[in-house]
């Protein structure tokens, strides 16, 4: 069984180079690193919260 062929979408290259439009974060790689950094910060803050108030 085969499915119908794919309808053409926008070319992958134009999709991947789309601007983030965020000041100081021109590439998506930087956006993802910031998000991961914020996650690590949250975990650290939660551990610190526990240590301070236990």
């Amino acid at each position, binding site marked *: 069984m085969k499915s119908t062929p794919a309808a053409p979408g926008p070319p992958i290259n134009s999709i991947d180079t*789309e601007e983030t439009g965020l000041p100081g974060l021109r590439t998506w790689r930087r956006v993802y690193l910031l998000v991961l950094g914020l996650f690590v910060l949250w975990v650290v803050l939660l551990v610190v919260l526990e240590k301070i108030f236990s």
Partner: protein
Amino acid sequence: MNPLDYLVLFATMLGIAAYGIWLTRGQRGLRAYLKGSGTTGWLTIGLSVMATQASAITFLSMPGQGYEDGLGFVQNYFGMPLALIIVAAVFLPMFRRCNVYTAYEFLGRRFDTKTRLLGAGLFLLQRGLGAGITIYAPAIVLSTVFGWPLGLTIVLSGMLVIIYTVTGGNEAVSQTQKYQMIVIFGGMAAAFVVLLTKLPAQLTFPDALHLAGTFKKLNAVDFSPDLHRRYTFWSGLIGGLCLSLSYFGTDQSQVQRYISGASLRECRLGLMFNAVCKIPMQFLILLLGVLLFVFYQFETPPVFFNQSSWSAAEKRDSEKTYVIEQEFAVASANKQQAINDWLDARRLHDPAAETNARAQVLDAHRQTEAARAEARAALRAADAHAQTNDGDYVFITFILAHLPHGVIGLLVAAFFAAALSSKAAELSALGSTTSVDFYRHLLKREASEEHYVKASKWFTAIWGVVALGFALFAHLQENLIQAVNIVGSVFYGVVLGLFLVAFFVKWVRGTAVFYAALLAQALVFSLYFTLSISYLWYNLIGCAACVLFSLLIQAAQVKIKDQGASAK
């Protein structure tokens, strides 16, 4: 609830639904119905994704979870940021490039029809089985507390969501979710502020946190490698990553939320909005529960928060329940005294007195917990099937007893808004998957746009009626709720495995991945019935097994083919 609360509740619910219907009037084509106008911005996408994931139970029960067990549940969301990054970087561009209506359509393009139908079928099975729960779960709590007829609560809220989802399609779901989330945030923020003002004047915020910490309510991160503990850093990060990746990357109720954005940028920012905001949001909801716990250290709570169940036990054995209540009241008074002594010692900077008072606080707490355990035993003695977990009733008890009228209506509206917003996304996804992956693909390939829109509306309505029926049936079969939750976690890993092979292992073909998925699913089932590990791990096991079996089967296929060719 007084007339003002009912006015706020009905005006909010009906107003948002009517706005969704009005906004999408005159919508014609299948693309507009299933994917929206194509102009959706990142904030709408972000709120829509958040609203789809956050059901009424998130806001109704999670403060109770924080009250009982503290902040530990937040670890369940640790895999989410990384999962959303992978979805934004890999899944999303592929879905948009292939210009698909459903995630399973992509499987058909990459592999073959049988794999597409397997993915779509697994989705319909798990979402279809769970369809009633998002309506049933809040309805049972709210109808118990307010004395509303359960069936009527289910039917009215269910009909409202069916009407605007069927009428307005995907765009109506996204737009109503945006305003429903505003109502939810407003209600929860109001509850948080009122709770802070209700804490004793002499208790500073750091004191409140120290008190919570004394009872281990602030233990948020557990690095234990024990697989049997339900929520640890590792199960949250690794199991949660697989669960979130599967949910956000392959579950049509989420995929439909974000592929409809105006551009890839808007879709990605909507996902990153969730990656950044979800953990703080869940933390704040759990912290609300922790502060509720602190609040009830200064004001004696009911011995059992589900007053309806407790009243039933009182009718059976009033003498015993009276004795338990008295024991609980005495133990609570002792605890309050011990806490005040502890606070005085803290203010006087007397470490010895502080240590002594702290020990007395914990001892008094054990006595109150012993009284609560007796209350649960009394409930079971009165009715063997009685629910002895009252966590779902903690927040609503506080709301009714301590929030001003109008805000009560807003909070109840927030709970219904959460139920409706996640239900609408589910119904829309069930309708579109049935319509696109089964009806249009298998039964009616050549028909007009109007025909497919009409078919999609019918399928959405049928799934809505199925959900209503299930919610009403769940009333009779309490264990179904747990069964449905297990069904979801048991299937997700394998579906994720299908997509990971599709994206990352180009040389594996449809037949290999199809049989690998069936084998992996059988393995997960057999492990589920023989192991007692946290359910989050089944996502990892199912996914890994599907990928591994795909590689092995494809390699075996290639080898057999090569041997056949050399034999000729």
